[in-house]
């Protein structure tokens, strides 16, 4: 059974070229979306999440998450989709802790600051020292860490990552991706990952969707696209 699949039937004005019919490989829980700028990768994530309203059907682990049993649309706030944004979208009026706990506190109706599970998550991403800081005082990399924790703290079934480590230096990037993969595997999270870096794709993903002009033009294992040593090697 595929981990996730979605079929878009939209002819949305915002995304006139987007026309997707994709099924995620059963081989990997992590799929990378690869393609040039403007190919429609971020739009794909927004369609999957429900951010952009559409007729897109989204299945996670064989269960449709955008419609309930009576075919009614599931509200965005009940889809259990976590999203890490390219521009982090940390709430500027909250501090790092307020952002990190935002979804978790709301979903579980409990104060999670101090909760051992949350503390472990914060520790895993090396962000304990950031918790009291205002968002404005965080560097780009620190903001992305908090964005990752915020998305994971909501206990998503599906995690959508739009260049989640783009602002972090190369050495730290792979360490953080390792922790992200460990967490996703431990929690059984299905992940869609956008990145421009073939090395990151090979490091993380078991499957690649190559998208261009809003269309899937190829899919397969990373080695098919980048070889064993990357696109130029």
């Amino acid at each position, binding site marked *: 059974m595929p981990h996730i699949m979605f079929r878009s039937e939209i002819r949305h004005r915002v995304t006139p070229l987007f026309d997707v019919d994709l099924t995620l490989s059963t081989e990997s829980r992590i799929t990378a979306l690869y393609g040039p700028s403007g190919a429609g990768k971020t739009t794909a994530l927004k369609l999957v999440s429900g951010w952009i309203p559409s007729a897109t059907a989204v299945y996670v682990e064989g269960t449709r998450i955008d419609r309930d049993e009576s075919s009614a649309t599931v509200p965005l706030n009940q889809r259990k989709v976590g999203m890490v944004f390219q521009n982090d979208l940390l*709430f500027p009026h909250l501090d790092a802790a307020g952002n990190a706990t935002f*979804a978790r506190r709301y979903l579980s109706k409990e104060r999670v600051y101090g909760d051992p599970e949350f503390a472990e998550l914060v520790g895993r991403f090396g962000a304990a020292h950031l918790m009291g800081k205002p968002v404005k005082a965080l560097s780009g990399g620190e903001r992305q860490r908090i964005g990752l924790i915020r998305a994971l703290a*909501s206990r998503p079934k599906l995690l959508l990552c739009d260049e989640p480590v783009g602002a972090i230096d190369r050495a730290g990037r792979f360490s953080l991706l390792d922790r992200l993969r460990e967490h996703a595997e431990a929690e059984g999270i299905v992940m869609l990952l956008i990145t421009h870096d073939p090395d990151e794709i090979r490091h993380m993903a078991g499957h690649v969707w190559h998208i261009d002009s809003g269309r899937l033009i190829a899919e397969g294992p990373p080695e098919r696209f980048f070889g064993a040593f990357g696109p130029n090697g």
Partner: protein
Amino acid sequence: MIRLMSIAESIGLNGSDLTAIVLSTFVAFSASILVGLTATPLAWFVAKRPNRFSGPIVALASLPLVMPPTVTGYALLSVFGRNALLGRILERSFGVVLVFHWSGAILASAVSSFPLYFLTARSAFARVNPDYEQAARLMGCREFAVFRRITLPLALHGLTVAFLLGFVRALGDFGATLMVAGNIPGRTQTAALALYDAATLGEAARARALAALLGVVALVALWFAGRTPVNREI
């Protein structure tokens, strides 16, 4: 109180002027609260849920800004006067008479200051990046929680400016208040009306003191409004 009276007299004001200043402050504050409670949801609706009714709503809500204040006052009398339908219902059901009463001054000031608050609040809500709101929905928030936890805090500086502008406008209302509440010293006479009395009676020192007082309050409020960082990226 005696000391306050002596200070007032030293700058040319009399006891009735002090009552007018207190009444003005009370009326302006009450009107601002009333406007805040009614205009905030309307401004949010227009800014965040634009639809075919948005244009007419904005035009109607902004009307007192461009109409002669006497027209606003006359319109209020036509609706809330003792012989008007709503006025009769209020009097018979609740014993409330707005005409020639301080409550009428609150209503008139509220209507006059409504557009300033509404338009400023609408801009404040419109400046809130909708991506933050959509992200909050994705993180489990229902619509009211999105408003309470994201939209309202991010628009708060703009709403503070809206409140200050509305307060100053309500404090200085003249025409509509005169039409609805009259100009009864000690009962419905506000500072702006007392200033009119002083000027027409040729009491220059009294008029100068009242004008200066109203001017300084407005200046301080606008200074605070100018200091509020509404233009930061949100």
